[in-house]
């Protein structure tokens, strides 16, 4: 699974996982246990659309700060997907996580810093009934896409957006992708067992690539 033609291990950024900014999409979503099925759905949908999913988890370089790794991934991706589900108070102290808005801010910075022909583009996902307009009204113009926290609602949103980007290729239908999603999740669970829970990002993306449904 994770070896190249010469039996060498494939690393993120090389070979089948070479980074082309035009087809790279940075995924800025929670990846806690509760959100995990949706995170998997987004990563798999992006792969099925011919894009390379990028994440803060892609680099195992612990000598670099997390924010630097994220900024590097965003700046080498033309696209990004941001789910703002977790921006609400949680736990006894009612603290909200601000990583997601911060990373969206990096993407906005990337857009402003780039020439028009290389402008960064993003999709913002929010759960239905999310009060983003009240806490971050600046996003209203970006037409966030609501979902009902199911793979069935999130996959068509992600695919319709990615499939209409200038660098898109022909994509399978969301129905086919949703049918294959459990196989990807099963393969991910198998990899997690093999790797003691810490699946390298490269292995995860290679697994997704092998399970992309054929075009109709």
């Amino acid at each position, binding site marked *: 699974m994770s070896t190249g033609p010469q039996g060498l291990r494939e690393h993120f950024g090389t070979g089948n996982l070479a980074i082309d900014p035009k087809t790279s999409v940075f995924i800025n979503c929670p990846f806690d246990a509760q959100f995990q099925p949706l995170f998997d759905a987004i990563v798999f949908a992006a792969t099925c659309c011919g894009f390379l999913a990028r994440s803060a988890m892609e680099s195992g370089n612990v000598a670099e700060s997390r924010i630097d790794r994220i900024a590097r991934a965003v700046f080498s991706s033309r696209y990004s997907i941001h789910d703002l589900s977790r921006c609400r108070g949680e736990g006894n102290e009612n603290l909200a996580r601000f990583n997601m808005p911060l990373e969206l801010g990096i993407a906005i910075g990337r857009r402003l810093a780039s020439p028009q022909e290389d402008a960064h583009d993003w999709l913002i996902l929010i759960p239905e009934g999310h009060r983003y307009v009240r806490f971050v009204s600046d996003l209203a113009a970006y*037409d966030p896409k609501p979902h009902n926290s199911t793979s069935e609602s999130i996959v068509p949103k992600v695919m319709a957006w990615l499939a209409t980007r200038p660098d*898109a290729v*022909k994509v399978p239908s969301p129905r086919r992708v949703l049918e294959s999603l459990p196989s990807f999740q099963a393969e991910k669970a198998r990899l997690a067992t093999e790797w003691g829970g810490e699946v390298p990002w490269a292995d995860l993306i290679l697994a997704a690539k092998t399970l992309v449904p054929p075009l109709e």
Partner: protein
Amino acid sequence: MSDVFISCSRHSEKYAEALSDALQGRSISTWLYTRDLGPSQVWSDEILKAMENARVIAFIIEPKLSPSTWQQKEYIAALEYSWSDKNKILLPILIGDADAPPFLRDRVSLRIQNHKSDWAKAAEEVTKVLSETTTPTITKTCEKERVQRLNAIEKGASALRYIDGQRLLVEAMKYLVQSDPVSNRNAIELLSEHVRKRFRMADVDASRSRALRKSKTASKQFR
């Protein structure tokens, strides 16, 4: 409600109007924002509604012209509608040497080279497409209404079955109490628990809630 929704940029309005004229000359109805948006309407809602209701979504594509932000939204919506409605036809109409955007590249397109004669030909082709595809006997809106009505009937029927089931349990409890309340105590408690915990008001349509409440009161009085 129209046969053909025409998606275009501001720059391509003249082509969209030429296509609309040619189609209307063949009695094919069209929807074009320059002609069909009325004052005070929420334009974004109206455009998406028109796209959803049209049988064909035609995209006017000019060479070297990147889609505007709104056009990209139309692309996304069109693709989503085509996934949810297999009868929806997406039709790229390419001006000169324009290329179709990636999501339309696998669709057969119509190319306009000669602006005097090609619009009539394009209208002829669209007419063929419309007549060749399965003509829906009911429109999308009608279909939605039909499904809603069926759902309402199904919901009503299910609520009735629900109430009948609850009444039956109450009758069973009455019978057990009247025949031998001591020996039947465990069975009565079991049924009572079932009525209290398994039947919930939230499970049924609000319109049926009054009938249910009455039924529940009956079971409470009995206990």
